[in-house]
């Protein structure tokens, strides 16, 4: 209603577009709105519907099963494993692309302009590489025969580890691939956030005698808080969504479910086991998880938008 009254007022004083303004407005937004409707909201509702059915993707009949997919999910050890793995990914990525870039952001403030620019560009560089290519490059680095890490390990006299096919190391190996790519994006956001802290604030704090750790602990890091919260939510999204590509390419969730996560289970149940209903139930829960993360982040920090590769 507010928009309508404002519209009338503006038409009164400025150039009149007549009743056609609304229609023109709708025509401009039509292509994007229709596309997003068909390819985002329609499938979301369809997924919700399918989550109450049992269906193998090819059979002409879909059987209504009520909440049974959701119930099965709660009891399934596979899903429980996927959830704990998702948490493990979040911890890995929290350390590698939240804590580490925050420390690097601190380090960057002590650099002269030339090095500051150089480090920012170099550290950002892997971000433009696709996760698929990153996966293949790292597969070669991890490769037990002739791979860089195995050769170094060998030279150190250690028993070579097949990182990606050992259930104890595979999840970390996948997390490192994602961290390699994602570090630069978070680092860029953090440095931009810190640059947004007004110089006067820094000067004033230093006049008051705040130096070194005190300056960071009590002035700068708190002011960087909203950015850190935003980067934290981006990191949680990575832990669920980004890892999908290397998992799909390299391990398909194995060995013995050690690398699967909640998002990968959506794919595996639908396209491996053809359990569309069950897959949809997991998808709906993932959607709710993302809704919670996004809502909390928006409430806590002021930033609203991120841009992610899919």
């Amino acid at each position, binding site marked *: 209603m507010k928009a309508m009254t404002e519209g009338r007022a503006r038409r009164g004083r400025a*150039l009149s577009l007549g009743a056609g303004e609304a229609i023109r407005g709708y025509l401009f937004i039509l292509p994007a*709105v229709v596309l997003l409707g068909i390819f985002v909201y329609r499938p979301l509702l369809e997924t919700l519907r399918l989550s109450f059915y049992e269906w193998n993707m090819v059979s002409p009949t879909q059987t209504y099963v009520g909440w049974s997919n959701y119930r099965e999910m709660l009891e399934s050890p596979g899903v429980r494993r996927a959830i704990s793995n998702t948490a493990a990914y979040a911890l890995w990525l929290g350390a590698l692309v939240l804590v580490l870039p925050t420390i*690097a952001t601190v380090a960057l403030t002590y650099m002269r302009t030339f090095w500051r620019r150089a480090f*920012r560009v170099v550290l950002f560089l892997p971000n433009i*590489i696709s996760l698929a290519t990153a996966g*293949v490059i790292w597969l070669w680095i991890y490769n037990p025969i002739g791979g860089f890490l195995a050769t170094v390990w060998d030279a150190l006299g250690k028993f070579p580890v097949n990182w990606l096919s050992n259930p104890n190391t595979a999840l970390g190996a996948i997390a490192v691939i994602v961290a390699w790519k994602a570090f630069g994006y978070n680092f860029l956001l953090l440095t931009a956030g810190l640059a947004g802290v007004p110089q006067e604030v820094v000067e004033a704090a230093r006049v008051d005698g705040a130096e070194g750790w005190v300056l960071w602990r009590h002035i700068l890091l708190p002011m960087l808080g909203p950015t850190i919260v935003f980067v934290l939510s981006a990191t949680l999204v990575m832990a669920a969504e980004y890892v999908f*590509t290397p998992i799909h390419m390299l391990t398909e969730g194995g060995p013995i479910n050690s690398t699967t996560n909640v998002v990968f289970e959506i794919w595996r149940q639908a396209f491996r086991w053809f359990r569309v209903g069950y897959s949809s139930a997991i998808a709906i829960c993932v959607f709710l998880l993302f809704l919670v993360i996004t809502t909390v982040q928006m409430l806590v920090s002021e930033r609203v938008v991120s841009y992610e590769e899919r």
Partner: protein
Amino acid sequence: MRNAEPVQEGWSLETGPLSRAAWFVFLLVLALLALFPLWWMFTTALKPASQIFAGDLSLFPRGATLDHFRRLMGTFNLARIMGNTLVVAAVTTGFQLITSLLAAYGFARYRFPLREPLFYLCLGTMFIPIQVIMVSNYLLVSDWGLLNTYAAAILPQAASAFGVFFLRQQLRLFPQSLLDAARIDGAGELTVLFRIVLPTIRPFITALGILFFINAWNQYVWPVLVLTDPDMMTLPIALREFMHSEAGHDWGLMMAASTMGVLPALIAFLLAQRMIMSTFASTGLKG
């Protein structure tokens, strides 16, 4: 928000030479970790096969060769795959730019019932993981008989909520008086948009276009579902195919293929590095 400007440099702090050196070494180690995998990929792609498996960790290839790239052309129909990737990435970028520009203009400059709810519905699509909706979209595209077509890869990505959001920010700043003046002169709505508004926001369109292109060039999750015919695959999808083929342990070949996947994005990045980084940096900013 002036996104096409360089990332803010910000202020710097002073510290003693020792602690500065320590911080420098820390950043240097991170930078080497960032660069090493790329360097390893390039050099493996250029090393003669005999050096690759010898447990040879030399950082520079001895007697660099383009042999792996030549074999790649023969073995994997590389030209076709690069062509597919280019078509899908370019057309996706084009569609995303046009639909984003139109919608952003509509949302920024027109008043109509339900404008705010519709805008937030658009924005909301950014927070829905593609994996949540991919099964249903796959079924739809399959019902339409589009599997293994460019259309299948492009259509579901033809609108970008991020693009709408990003351009709306720019278009809101455009002075209304200029638009009104053009309309008094009898210019149609589309003429106003393309002749008067577009030229002033060209830097933002360029930055957004590069971002879209790199993203579309790199995408994996959706095309891996709908492009399963080796003749239709884009490069990231073909990489997986190579990996699972008998050439999967031919690392010279694999790294040559990876290099082909990295190069276009890398060139785009190096050409427009400041623009890309400032656009990326702005993606986290509040609306």
